[in-house]
């Protein structure tokens, strides 16, 4: 298998195209197809899905013919930290409140850096939390709870 794939970038992008293409067609089977003159909701996505299958197949084919650069290592830790920060913000916003959510968002995403040091980042997180409350809630009037339900006694 490894010998066959000369261009891993083409190979994996081909796989992604095939997934999206077949997904569009398979899920689209639940919707009405219609005719060319009276297109149903499935008509256009099915056509695009078919084109994607074609592009995906071409990419797979090309990956066995033309060689290309290898794919670098995925930085799983950085990706996990950076992406979990906004998710955690969403989960915490109503419970802990805006101030707490921003504070933790900065700390957690900060851990993704190799230069993470506890004290400076604690200060940074506190600074950002206060600044954002001032800018977005006080000045711009965006409706965000400064303190969450956790602080209601």
């Amino acid at each position, binding site marked *: 298998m490894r010998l066959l794939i000369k261009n891993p970038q083409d190979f994996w992008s081909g796989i992604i195209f095939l997934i999206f293409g077949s997904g569009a067609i398979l899920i689209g089977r639940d919707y009405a197809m219609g005719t060319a003159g*009276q297109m149903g*909701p499935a008509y256009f*996505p099915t056509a695009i899905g078919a084109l994607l299958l074609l592009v995906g197949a*071409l990419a797979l084919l*090309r990956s066995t013919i033309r060689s290309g650069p290898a794919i670098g290592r995925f930085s799983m830790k950085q990706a996990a930290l*950076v992406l979990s*920060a906004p998710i955690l913000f969403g989960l915490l916003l109503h419970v802990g409140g805006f101030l707490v959510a921003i504070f933790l968002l*900065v700390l957690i995403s900060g851990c*993704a850096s190799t230069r993470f040091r506890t004290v400076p980042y604690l200060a940074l997180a506190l600074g950002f939390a206060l600044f954002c409350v001032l800018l977005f809630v006080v000045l711009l009037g965006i409706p965000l709870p400064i303190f969450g339900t956790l602080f209601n006694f």
Partner: protein
Amino acid sequence: MELLDHLGIGFETVFTVSNLLYCLIGVLLGTAIGVLPGLGPAATIAMLLPLTFNLSAIPALIMLAGIYYGSQYGGSTTAILVNLPGESSSVVTALDGYKMARQGQAGKALATAAICSFVAGCIATLVIAVFAPPLADLALEFGPAEYFSLMVLGLVASVILAAGSLLRAVGMILIGLLLGLVGTDVNSGVQRYTFGRPELFDGLDFVVVAMGMFALGEIIRNLENEIERNTTTGKVTGLMLTREDLKRIVAPAFRGTALGTVLGILPGGGAMLSSFAAYSVEKKVSPNSAHFGKGMIEGVAAPEAANNAGAQTSFIPMLTLGIPSNPVMALMIGAMIMQGIQPGPAVMTEQPALFWGIVVSMWIGNLFLVILNLPLIGLWVRMIMVPYHFLFPGIIVFCTIGVYSLNNSTFDLYLMAIFGLFGYVCAKFEMEAAPMLLGLILGPMMEEYLRRAMLMSRSDPMVFLQEPISAVMLAVAVLSLAAVVLPALRQKRAEAFVE
């Protein structure tokens, strides 16, 4: 003179204290965020979008336009001072600009960039004022077949102009078109690809996808190999250009402007392609082409003029046809729709104050940039010196708040994270995000026009060839695609991008 009347309306709109202030704030904020390394105009606008939510349509768009030029200009400043172009369009500026800075001519390079951008901005604004009305008149005659073919042409052009693999760019466009179809089908009311989530019934929000792909995906990539940046920029002095310098930059500035004006109108082109093209033209024309890349003032003047001209004229298809030619314009369209304006040829006749206000504000914004930015250079230098490991949590904070405040929905945050992951994966496989975002915006429009055209022609696909304008556009699309796929020309394209 009709042109003067139009510009008069524009000046009347812009010359109120509050609108001038919003233009100024936009330009300053745009520059401040734009100088931060690694943040291009699209990410900057997406991040600052929530600031305009409480404004009415005219000041909101004036401010967003200001943010756009500001970030463009900020990107060049970073390129010159620290050789870290924040966006692809200033990559070329870094070649000679950074060399000039190393030779102690940072001030000269910055002044050249400012002056050339201003000249180009003035000319491009006039071009918009002259050519937008006839184009909008023409567009009013367009039926569904013409619109569909125009979008096909636009997508083909964006594939051809995209850097990297053609095949992958096509694939990304198709994925974008599919993602654009998520939500309620306007004709049948059927919920498509929503997996039963009510949050998806209105479709995927462009800003959510753009922030995920551009901002988060990019941050993960930057964190992969954190390198110590050279922050020893020192003080910038000598902002004045000599008569000799001015003589040297006149011709390149005008050539760059001309190229940028034309290329900016093309879909997928805009600022980046313009600056690349302008640089290679200067290199060919110049008698001392060997000195390029070693600190030639012409090598700063031409691409800076070109990218600013291109940035301005990319507004033409957006304002007259309602079709975005690049992700930044797609964001502008998103902002207009949020303000309750349906972009298209009707905007000019129905809301002349808005249309001409935006056009005139472009000129004012450029004026602000040239007057303010050189004196403020010390401030921008300090912004650039903020180390990246303190900067990126802040970017994530702004993206998060921006996305949340779109619909006050935490679901959008989870979506953004998903697209951040997808963006990172795509970047790893060198699949470009920009064509996908173009597809995302055009998807629902294309489907709608295709449906209408086929309905009106009683399911005869020949309608696209029988309407002359539509046939011409499709022919251009097919010919240009064929030209690129032919191997001989493909080689040239690769060379052009290497330069």
